[in-house]
């Protein structure tokens, strides 16, 4: 009980459940139960769009966990997101073996490249469970190794950020190559079935939306639990005064590594949920610019609050959708301006506007 109270005040708990219910149950109901013309109606095309935003929100949650609480700004979370997406994409490609344009057992792009058999790293991806495991395990292993090397040599601050960006850049180049075996430039696309359900059907999309919303809700609770535990307090202490933490007898390497790897897993999960709803995964997801955009979601919402990331990703992506349709030329000006405005004038983000100054 005390633990629950540490996580949220009773009022906040109420709010959390209200929003969660609205997101998980409300949207599908408004979509299916209301008339098409009504003000409350959520049109069909909105469902996968909202699902996509929820995936971004999950990424923002992951970003906030390590940036807001551990003070580590990653400019490479796009990689973990894309890797999770690729694992899901590989399953989706395998699940439609024989149904592609070439009616081959191999994915279309391999036929196109005149490959005769499946590369070894595609083995097992016809099994959904294995693919889901890999969607979490591959980002986790990459993050663990990378984080171990970086944190061990005490790389932090801008050094760490830029090195994550270099990692993103290198992996993007790798995935752009056809020989790497993930569809090169075009990536993986033209998916048809997920566990036998047709991805083009509205019901499948609705179900995916509900699953995404639920996963986001659970992830939020887990993150909240983490940051209000002693683990979270040590993490924040590392952010504020790392050497003091060391001289208190904690090994910051382990703490950072845990938070970093967990954050990468959340990203992988988001990527895996993203791909079936969007229908494509390609190396441009790994572009450094995308990863930096993830940071601005958190900055806009407010760091170190968890809620901030969710709010920020919603606001920025909503704006992006609107701008790129209405004023495509102005979007980059707006985004650039947003980066500058938020860092200069809104250091605590939107959520910070509603919070008292002295509470952290």
């Amino acid at each position, binding site marked *: 009980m005390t633990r629950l109270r540490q996580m949220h005040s009773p009022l906040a708990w109420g709010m959390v459940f209200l929003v969660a219910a609205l997101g998980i149950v409300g949207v599908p109901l408004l979509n299916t139960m209301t008339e098409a013309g009504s003000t409350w109606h959520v049109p069909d095309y909105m469902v996968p769009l909202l699902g996509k935003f929820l995936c971004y929100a999950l990424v923002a949650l992951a970003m906030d966990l390590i940036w807001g609480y551990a003070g580590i700004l990653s400019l490479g979370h796009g990689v973990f997101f894309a890797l999770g997406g690729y694992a899901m994409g590989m399953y989706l490609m395998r699940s439609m073996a024989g149904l592609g344009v070439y009616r081959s057992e191999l994915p279309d792009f391999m036929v196109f490249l005149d490959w005769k058999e499946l590369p070894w790293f595609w083995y097992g991806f016809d099994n959904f469970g294995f693919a889901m495991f890999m969607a979490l395990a591959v980002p986790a292993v990459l993050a663990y190794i990378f984080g171990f090397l970086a944190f061990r040599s005490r790389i932090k601050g801008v050094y760490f950020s830029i090195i994550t960006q270099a990692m993103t850049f290198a992996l993007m180049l790798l995935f752009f190559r056809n020989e790497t075996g993930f569809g090169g430039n075009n990536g993986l696309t033209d998916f048809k079935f997920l566990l036998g359900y047709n991805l083009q059907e509205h019901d499948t999309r609705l179900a995916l939306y509900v699953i995404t919303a639920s996963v986001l809700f659970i992830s939020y609770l887990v993150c909240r639990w*983490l940051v209000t*535990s002693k*683990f979270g307090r*040590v993490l924040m202490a590392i952010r*504020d005064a790392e050497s*003091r933490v060391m001289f*208190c*007898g904690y*090994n910051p390497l382990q703490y950072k590594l845990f938070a970093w790897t967990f954050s990468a897993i959340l990203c992988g999960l988001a990527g895996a949920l993203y791909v079936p709803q969007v229908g494509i995964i390609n190396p441009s997801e790994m572009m450094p610019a995308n990863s930096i955009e993830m940071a601005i979601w958190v900055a806009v919402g407010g760091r170190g609050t968890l809620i901030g990331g969710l709010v920020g990703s919603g606001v920025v992506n909503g704006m992006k959708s609107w701008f790129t349709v209405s004023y495509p030329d102005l979007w980059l000006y707006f985004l650039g301006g947003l980066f500058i405005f938020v860092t200069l004038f809104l250091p605590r983000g939107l959520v910070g506007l509603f919070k008292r100054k*002295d509470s952290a």
Partner: protein
Amino acid sequence: MNAWLERTREFWRRDQVFDFMLPPLQSRELDVSHGVVLYLENITVSFDGFKALNNLNLYVNNGELRCIIGANGAGKTTMMDVITGKTRPDTGAVFFGQKIDLTKYNESEIAAAGVGRKFQKPTVFENHTVLENLELAMQMNKSTFVSLTARLSGEQRDRIDEVLSIIGLTEQVYLRAGLLSHGQKQWLEIGMLLMQSPYLLLVDEPVAGMTQQEIERTAELLTSLAPRHSVVVVEHDMAFVRSIARTVTVLHEGSVLAEGKMDEVQANPKVIEVYLGEGY
């Protein structure tokens, strides 16, 4: 070639075990059977040719309160860095008790083994409450997975309350540490050291920026610690040193210039020449 031979010889030494066979420093038993808690022997540290520590030899007895004085650049802080694992000495040995070779461990392991350190500038966790600061410092299992489910037991809470009353911050227990005054932060940091219940406390200029009243209380606190803990204090304030010190060590250019009672040291002509100056 020589270096290689050296390493081979190192490999076959029979009085030492390999690094990876060393026990993890979580056990809190310290062997002080010879009455000495800290050995610094032939320590040399050089930065780009400049010798910050030059063949330093220093022994601290168990339960002793030792003051270290020296001019700026005498190597006081570097010595602290060597003991706490922040800087690795080029040569020499650092032993904690009879068995623990501190040069083999990193900062957090050394801290967990029972060496506490207070910095020159007060460093507390400004975004945490006083209570959380003390909780984080408390001596307990500090591994990641334990921290996920750690809860304060009644006993631990009592210990925190005890320290709170020692450092006089009982009323500020739920206040954010960033809002404390400079003196209160110094006290909180000392409180955090107490929570660690270290065998050896390294205190770097504890009274800098304190009022006279606070200085007196600090002196009282440090002397009261002495029998149970070993304390090493680095300080510039001579009046303060005189008020607490039993033994004083003077560092000069990275090695020990003189050691003894305050009066003896102050009468030592070498010390007068290089540090205290004619004024004293």
